[in-house]
């Protein structure tokens, strides 16, 4: 059975600068996978490659179908929700409008309404601030908005780029709880890029560690957590 997402010897870069030098990884249906590594290792570039934001060679397949030459919006329509570095909140629009952009492609009316109910249940602040401009939200609230929006897209795979960045520990915990809930109840696979390795390993079942554009380590989260040497040299704790 082939994986949901497969990357095969992916090289990517910006102009003459190469950032990824042949990365291969797999995410299975319903799995949460961590992509770890230091700053500049190429984690964000990997996510960008998947949704066509950067040129790449090699192969990237979603459900067996190659994503080569697909435009970003088409990859997204095929079932990938990507919350980028910085969250990608449309600040000219209201909270509600941001959410609507998450669900605007869906045709299953009643299910959409149910999903909105769940979103407001997970993140009550979004309901309270519905009509306000998205720019009025705090960092944590924006992350919630981004996640809610991604959830509303009903994707098969979610790409999350550093969801914990700049957020208070309590908020981060709450958000990670919800990621876990979404993953379990809706069977949404997640590829999680994180600098906070400990949090990521607690959430994910599998992890890859990138180092300067190459895979240094891969294995189950339990393994990586258990290995002291790995933890200290690669994960920083």
């Amino acid at each position, binding site marked *: 059975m082939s994986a949901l997402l497969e990357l095969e010897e992916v090289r990517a870069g910006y102009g003459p600068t190469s950032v990824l030098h042949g990365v291969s990884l797999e995410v299975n249906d319903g799995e949460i996978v961590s992509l770890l590594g230091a700053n500049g290792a190429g984690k964000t570039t990997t996510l960008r490659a998947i949704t066509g*934001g950067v040129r790449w060679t090699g192969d990237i397949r979603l459900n067996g179908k190659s994503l080569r030459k697909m435009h970003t919006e088409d990859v997204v*329509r095929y079932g990938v929700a990507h919350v980028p570095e910085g969250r990608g*909140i*449309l600040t000219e629009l209201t909270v509600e409008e941001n959410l*609507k952009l998450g669900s*605007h492609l869906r045709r299953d009316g009643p299910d959409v309404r149910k999903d909105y109910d769940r979103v407001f249940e997970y993140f009550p602040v979004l309901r309270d601030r519905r009509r306000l401009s998205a720019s009025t939200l705090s960092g944590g609230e924006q992350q919630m908005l981004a996640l809610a929006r991604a959830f509303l897209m009903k994707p098969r795979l979610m790409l999350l780029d550093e969801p914990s960045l700049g957020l208070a520990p309590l908020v981060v915990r709450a958000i990670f709880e919800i990621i876990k809930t979404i993953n379990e109840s809706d069977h949404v696979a997640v590829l999680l890029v994180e600098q906070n390795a400990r949090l990521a390993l607690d959430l994910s079942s599998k992890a890859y560690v990138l180092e300067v554009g190459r895979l240094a380590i891969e294995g189950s989260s339990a393994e990586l957590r258990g290995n002291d040497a790995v933890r200290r040299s690669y994960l920083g704790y």
Partner: protein
Amino acid sequence: MQEFLQLVVSGIATGGIFASLALALVLIYNAMGLVNFAQGEMAMVATFIAFTLISHGLNYWIAFPVTLVIAFAGGIAIQRIVIRPVERAPLLTLVIITLGLTTLLNGLAGAIFGYVPRSFPSPFSVQTVNILGAYASYRDLGVIAVSGVVLLAIYLLLQRTTVGLTLRAAAHHPEASRLLGVRVSWMLALGWGLASAVGAVSGIMVAPIILLEPNMMQTIIIYAFAAAVLGGIESPLGAVIGGLIVGVTVNLAGTYVPFVGGDLQLAVALAIIIGVLVLKPNGLLGRPSVRRV
């Protein structure tokens, strides 16, 4: 006194026209983030197309929607051919290109149709109606009414529909919108088509009053711009109020200020623009924003 009143009333009528164009500017430039210096010339060309259709015997009420469709298609075509190649270029490049478009369209219209002003039919009668002892024509009021309806429709489209939402998203946040599955390229093209159609309506409404000729939109755009700046570029209501004030002021200045006379009324508009920018840059109703207009 009578003259004063008449000037005010007709100033309000003209002002209404400025207001509708200023409103179009505000909606299109701000809501859709559209950068198009050639907005006026495209409207002028559309009006000439309508003129050609009508002079070949087509009924006004058929020529009108047909022209709108042509204008819509034309707007999309221009976006695809001329604007898309420079999508990621700095703002300056875009403005220069649309400026080239302005010159090109003006020259072509001049070459094909000549510069002699022509009359253009209006669905409204020139009869006047008495308001407070002064006269305004049905035609002027009709222009304001039609423009108002069109702009309301556009506003509702942009604010209340999904298409409008994706249009706005694509215009202001293209990269983030792509990550939400929005086909940004096509939305931008759609925006241009819509703006072009709105411009066509303005042109067709205004032509009977100022006479159809290649340069007809140039001065009007400046008045509309003055109205938008006065009202506060981000505010639709401001555009309307600004338009009325500009209309009345220009009319009064033309008669009562000897220096101005008939041909320097445009200079009054320029003075308004500069004055507002120096004294109260956000206009009457604009939000004080950190961003520039």
